[in-house]
């Protein structure tokens, strides 16, 4: 398990360039165990790229991303079974059934069939997919496939979760239920780094990093961001959307 003082996700001045383009530009972040950290920001801000750096799917051009204390991707073998990753695309095997998808991901994480069966029942009822075990993934609705994709990341009960837009395309009721589950996981000591487009969801994170053009333009608890926006706008900004607009606009003005 993670020692409490150690960051689960940490990066110091990490940069990822594609050619001359800086997708992630000098980002520093520290997420302690048990925290839910939300990355928000406009499309193309670099959220996915940052998450992929933590997964070891890409190597930083400068700086270093560390996951559970290990440098990624160099040291990824040390942590490979301790984190779960949900890519932004609905990454499941379309030609396998719901149950077979979970079976495969369970097996490659070294779970035995019994545990896979138990976890499959648990997680599918949580995802409201309990009656879909035998249905092929390509015949699921978009939201159902999204939930299956999340289920695949959660199945092996990892310490750290990297979720790239886990709630996109879900109805509000389901989204609320997901957030309850995220909070339950966080209470159980698991750490979640997620990206989202829904600014209301930012409220439910312990802390939020606001990204724009590869940089963090603001970071803090939702309350801290709100007061930062208030001081910048010279008025109270209760709505998270407005917080976002005020902070991104002032950042653009500054650069």
């Amino acid at each position, binding site marked *: 398990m993670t020692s409490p003082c150690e960051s689960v996700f940490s990066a110091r001045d990490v940069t990822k360039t594609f050619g001359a383009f800086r997708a992630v530009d000098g980002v520093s972040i520290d997420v302690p165990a048990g925290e839910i950290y939300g990355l928000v920001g406009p499309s193309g801000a670099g959220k996915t790229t940052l998450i992929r750096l933590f997964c070891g799917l890409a190597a930083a051009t400068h700086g270093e991303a560390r996951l559970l204390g290990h440098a990624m991707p160099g040291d990824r073998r040390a942590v*490979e079974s301790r984190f779960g990753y949900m890519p932004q695309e609905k*990454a499941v095997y379309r030609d396998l059934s719901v149950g077979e998808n979970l079976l495969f*991901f369970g097996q*490659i994480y070294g779970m035995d069939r019994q545990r896979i069966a138990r976890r499959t029942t648990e997680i599918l009822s949580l995802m409201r997919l309990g009656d879909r075990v035998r249905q092929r993934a390509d015949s699921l609705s978009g939201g159902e496939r999204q939930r299956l994709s999340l289920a695949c990341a959660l199945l092996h009960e990892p310490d750290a979760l990297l979720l790239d837009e886990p709630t996109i395309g879900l109805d509000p009721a389901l989204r609320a239920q997901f957030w309850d589950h995220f909070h339950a996981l966080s209470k159980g000591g698991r750490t979640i780094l997620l990206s989202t487009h829904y600014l209301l969801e930012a409220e439910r994170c312990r802390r939020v990093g606001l990204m724009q053009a590869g940089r963090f333009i603001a970071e803090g608890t939702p309350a801290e961001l709100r007061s930062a926006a208030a001081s910048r706008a010279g008025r109270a900004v209760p709505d998270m959307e407005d917080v976002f607009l005020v902070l991104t606009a002032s950042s653009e003005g500054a650069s």
Partner: protein
Amino acid sequence: MSLRRIAAVAERVLRQLRHDRRVLVFMLVLPAVAMILFGYSFSGDITGVRVAFVDEDDTDLTQTLRDNLRADSAFRLAELPVGQDPEQLLLEAGYQAVIRIPDKFTSLYYAHFAMGVATSAQGRIDLTLDESDPQIAATVQKGLADALMDLGEGGPVDVQVKDLYGVEVRFIDSFAPAIMGLVVALISTVLTLLSIVREKVDGTFARVWVSPVRRAEFILGYVVAFGAVALVQSLVVLSVGKLVFGILINGSIAWAFLCVILFAIGSVGLGTLLSALAQTESQAVVFFPLVIVPSVLLSGMMWPIQAIPPLLRPLSYLVPLTYSNRLLRAVMVKGLAPWQEPVGLGGLLGFVVLTIAAASLILRQRARGAE
């Protein structure tokens, strides 16, 4: 390296195949249809068959015969000193036929002419053949008959044909191994390619990449799955061959299956390799003809390599199916052990090592550059 993870990947690939009815039908029906459709004779002009000429008589007459044979573009004639074992020449020196002229051939030949039909004296020639390729065998026999005709006046010659492998082999018998190789190569290459490209498109590849699955385990999982598929396909080809055409299988089926699996491994490697060059499934389709056309045309499957224009012939040796054909024909038709066909076996092993090594390098690059 974990066997469980390899098994997990293999199980998943097989489940995916099972779910796709069309692919499943394609996989099982293709070998049967191919075997039936291609079960005809094909022939082209055969040139450059390696023939050893052993002249124990050494007279003007036999030298004329030798020159006649040499003038035939079907043959690449080599005159060898007497006293060599024809079977050895065939098996080890790579000749496809050995023509031996015993001494006294010339005197017997003219004796018959002098004494008329009443005598039983007759010139005799020993012809040792590799019958495992019936088209080659027929070419040699016809060429020798023509050369004898051109000698002019003289007695009929008794050509004693000795088939090295004891039985007469028909075209279809040597065709079954080729069909087996072709369908296995096709299915393994094409489905591996499609499956991996699809994993990349769907993002499951990234998931597997961040999981404990190693590159080698990933490739081996595919190898195990398509090895199993190759076995089933070989069974289909052999069953259709046996039931519809009554083909003859001289050798050990177990060896044949092992060789087919070897070929499937190389084909999985090739599919993985090609997957690096395609970003989408429709791009992947572009590679299909690239795999199929040279295999059918250049591998010696439809017609012997000697029937391929000499200019193109070197290309044949770049086609993996060429080696598979040699090896499977040696094992199934001639009843040899794989190592008795070193070119075929070596070629296939080289194919496997090359493609698997390159595939695992490319997978590493892919995942690194998969951003």
